[in-house]
């Protein structure tokens, strides 16, 4: 496709949501009023995200798949000459899948919101924030200037803060404050690292810096800058032990917020590692890789153990379900919290893959990134739907003594949940498998100069992590999907369980793309790996052109 068209498509994908966000706050023009202002603004959200998705797909279709390592659809305009900051946009094989994933998930979220209005203040602000969030995430995957990357990175925090703070569940104010404090401090530390790289390297342009391979930076500068950047990105990723904001934020966030937080926001951290740390400070990346991998593996084990603890029945439930739960503040056994912790584990695999510094590992990491976005997005949607129907996400309350029997009460919902859980534990043939396997392959044979025994240990521990993941996911499936269907005296209500509404049409519409892509990526991983591999080879060898 024509280069100018590609340029415009990319620019439109970043700018349109921003304009749409501003437009959402204005009163609807005549002719677009719909059935009242709320419906009009929600429809506006669907339209804008739909157009952005179309632009992203067109961009992907026009992408030169023969040269995924080349930066394509580049726009490069001066913005602040005084600091040599330029509006430089472009996509390559690393960023394109993330870009499409973001556009897709945001569109599905907007669609879901259209039929399932969030409980809270006016949907007007909700849509505006959602679009702002989309613009920020798309921008952070599309920009090629360190300062702009930071701006985009920060731009995402504010809407997410408000989404949690205004539309969230219990404890939302505390969770939102914790989220903003952690991620902001992290990104300020990252800013210092980026500034150091930019000022010492003489340019903020990411392509130029990647081509330099850190030759403009002294070894000490690289070490300091990379440490700051890694810490900043690790908060976002999140890497153990900087993850503690995540479970609270996920538990409190509204469904759509959780989906985007897990599906898109976390990817920005690992994307930054691949895009910035690996090519721009290669020596420092080499120095820190074993530590990064160690933290990643601890994250995998820690995340799975935390999930297992949440998944198993808590001893208080045997007394009196409803009563005992009110004093444990609902956090124990919360399904959203469980999926949040599982994200810590999955992102651990991504970090491990990156830390191997091999093309195999980094490709695996990028693949796992996408897979996690699809699968965890789906799981959060499902748990949100479950909460809408049964009023709780607490596993103990849902399951009672024998199980929630979702297969019997809402077979399609139960089936989807089981599908999501199985995909998440990495069943071969589904998307979750390839990324984690490649990451472990990478650890089996890490880059030259990295200690092989250490990485073999990490690989073994990661393998244990997959077993634990399988264990807790199956426990969840057993407790939520299976169980006795007839009248259950232990639920606290005393009456029989009400039937749950099965999957609605709009939910099918929002979820089936995720299911289809999970299967597709699992059966045909080459489609994605073919894009990322040349770009990764190039990044590890000396930057894009």
């Amino acid at each position, binding site marked *: 496709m024509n280069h100018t068209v590609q340029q415009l498509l990319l620019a439109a994908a970043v700018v349109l949501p921003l304009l749409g966000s501003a437009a959402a706050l204005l009163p609807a023009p005549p002719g677009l009023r719909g059935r009242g202002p709320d419906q009009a603004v929600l429809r506006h959200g669907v339209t804008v995200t739909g157009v952005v998705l179309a632009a992203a797909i067109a961009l992907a279709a026009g992408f030169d798949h023969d040269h995924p390592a080349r930066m394509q659809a580049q726009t490069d305009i001066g*913005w*602040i*000459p*005084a*600091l040599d*900051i330029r509006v430089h946009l472009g996509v390559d094989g690393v960023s394109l899948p993330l870009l499409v994933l973001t556009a897709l998930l945001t569109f599905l979220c907007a669609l879901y919101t259209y039929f399932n209005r969030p409980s809270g203040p006016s949907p007007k602000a909700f849509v505006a924030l959602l679009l702002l969030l989309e613009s920020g995430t798309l921008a952070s995957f599309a920009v090629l200037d360190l*300062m702009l990357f930071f*701006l985009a990175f*920060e*731009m995402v925090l*504010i809407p997410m803060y*408000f989404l949690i*703070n205004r539309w969230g569940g219990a404890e939302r*104010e505390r969770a939102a*404050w914790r989220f*903003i*404090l952690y991620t*902001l*401090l992290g990104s*300020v*530390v990252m800013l*210092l690292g980026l*500034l150091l790289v930019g*000022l010492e390297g003489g340019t903020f342009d990411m392509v130029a810096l990647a081509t330099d391979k850190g030759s403009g930076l002294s070894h000490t500068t690289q070490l300091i800058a990379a440490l700051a950047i890694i810490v900043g990105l690790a908060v976002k990723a999140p890497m153990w032990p900087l993850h503690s904001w995540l479970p609270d934020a996920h538990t409190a966030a509204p469904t759509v917020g959780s989906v985007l937080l897990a599906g898109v926001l976390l990817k920005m951290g690992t994307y930054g590692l691949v895009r910035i740390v690996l090519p721009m400070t290669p020596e420092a990346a080499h120095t820190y890789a074993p530590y990064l991998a160690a933290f990643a593996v601890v994250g995998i084990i820690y995340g799975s153990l935390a999930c297992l603890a949440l998944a198993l029945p808590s001893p208080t439930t045997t007394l009196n379900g409803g009563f005992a739960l009110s004093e444990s503040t609902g956090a124990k056994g919360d399904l959203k919290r469980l999926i949040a912790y599982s994200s810590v584990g999955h992102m651990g695999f991504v970090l491990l893959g990156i830390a191997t510094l091999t093309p195999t590992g980094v490709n695996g990491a990028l693949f796992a990134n996408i897979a996690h976005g699809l699968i965890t997005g789906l799981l959060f949607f499902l748990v949100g739907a479950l909460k809408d129907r049964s009023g709780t996400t607490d596993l103990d309350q849902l399951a009672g003594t024998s199980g929630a029997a979702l297969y019997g009460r809402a077979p399609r919902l139960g089936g989807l949940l089981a599908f999501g859980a199985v995909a998440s534990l990495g069943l071969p043939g589904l998307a979750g498998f390839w990324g984690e396997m490649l990451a472990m392959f990478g650890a089996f044979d890490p880059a030259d100069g990295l200690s092989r025994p250490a990485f073999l240990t990490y690989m073994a521990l990661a393998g244990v992590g997959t077993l634990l993941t399988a264990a807790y996911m199956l426990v969840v499936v057993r407790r939520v999907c299976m169980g006795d269907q007839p009248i259950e005296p232990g639920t606290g209500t005393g009456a029989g369980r009400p039937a749950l509404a099965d999957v609605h049409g709009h939910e099918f519409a929002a979820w089936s793309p995720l299911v289809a892509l999970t299967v597709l990526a699992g059966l045909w991983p080459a489609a994605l790996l073919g894009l990322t591999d040349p770009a990764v080879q190039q990044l590890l060898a000396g930057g894009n052109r």
Partner: protein
Amino acid sequence: MTANSSSLATSLVQSVDWLAVAPPTIAALTGLAVLVADLFLSERGKRLLGWGAIAGLALASLSLLPLLDGDRSTFCLTTGAHACSYTADTFALVIQFLVLGGALLTALLSFSALDDLKLPAGEFWFLLLSSAAGAALLPAARDLATLVIALEVASLPAFALVGLRRGDRLSSEAALKFFLSSVTATAVMLLGVSFVYAATGSLHLSRIAGALTHVDPRLDTLAQAGVVLTLVGFAFKTAAVPFHFWVPDTYVGAPVPVAAYLSVVGKAVGFSGLILVTVLAFPAYADVWGPAVAVLAALTMTAGNAAALRQRPERAFSAVRLLAWSSVAQAGYLLVPIAAAGYADSAKDASRAIGSTVAYALTYAAVNLGAFAVAALVARTSPANRLTDYRGLYAARPAAALALGFFLLCLAGLPPGIIGLFAKVTVFSAAVDAGLGWLAVVMALNVVMALYYYLQWTAVLFRAPEHSAAAESVPGGTAEPVPAAGAAVARPRAVPLTAAIGLTAVIGIALSGAPQLVLRFASGTLL
């Protein structure tokens, strides 16, 4: 014969470039006009005085436009080497714009404060305009005598402005504190100026710079002492540590618009004087003042932020107090490039470093005045102006809350306050370029530290309003919001105040979209 007499006449009677001196002159003349008009106006007509003052300040700002085409000098020596007392170069024009614009915004803020606090209108406007005239004169002054006079013209009315709240113990105490510490600093500075004069035999900055390169070795100590003591006076005005103790009490005691004025225009006076003496007069002693200013900068930002962090939100006037300490911290950032200029290898590098300060000051002026404007707005309904009073501001006044949030994020240096971020980046890079790595690290730590209180305040704005919780706990709690709402209705709508908030917000957003507008000073030559 005739040619001879005319040249004699020019040597005796200077031709003054009235266009060049117009900005401070117009401000001063308007001040006098307002004072005289006050005598003849009825009580109801006094509102016109304010609009007259604003018109005068606007006219003074407009008079900067014809000066843009090039440097102009006037009040020059007619004999010997070329040296002028007044130069309208880019630096002077930019600072004059800052000062006059800042005074204009202060004037907009003051309308409602004059009504609410029953301040004497004529005196207030006269004092404000006089101070602004002095402040506008200072950046163009190119000899030490003019500098000192300008500094005093800017300061003396400020003392009176702070103490203008008649019968208020806090106000008079604030004025006294401000006056005493300021006078001490001036005395010390005059001593320094006299030492410098003794060592060099000149008051003109350019000639001092020349003379200081070959000072008589016996006078060297005297000259060094003179340099340091002169800096003290300006350090006081910028509220640099250890001359910062007057700031919180003075800001709290003064009417909010006056505090805003001091935090922006007062500081601009201080740092532009500091720049003039350091870069123009004392470059030969850069090894003396460079490290001194660097240490001063580090101490100032750290002390300001540490004190701001310790503010208790439920204390009376905690909002203004927090802004006061934050302005101390910001003064620290402003000093960083001046210190960097002391380490610069060439005059061009020094000038670029100074440009960073100017760019930062312009940004800071706009957003800090905006923050004070919202504080003034809130002070109308909750006079105690505690940080807790800002809780739920978004629910009550969404636009004001969004504006304040934006200003605070600009001060913190976080998006969407993009201009605040990049202004800090220029200052940071000035420090790095000058090899002041340690100062850059101190600054970075301080910026991170400051995030906490700026963010906390921003978050408070969007919390749920408190009275809904109070209504639940106290049975009569529902009666509480009613008088507050009634009071808000009873007061006249503060149109000028709203205009000031709107104007600063527009400036902040425009600069965030096109930071080059101010950041170009950081790459060009000013002096």
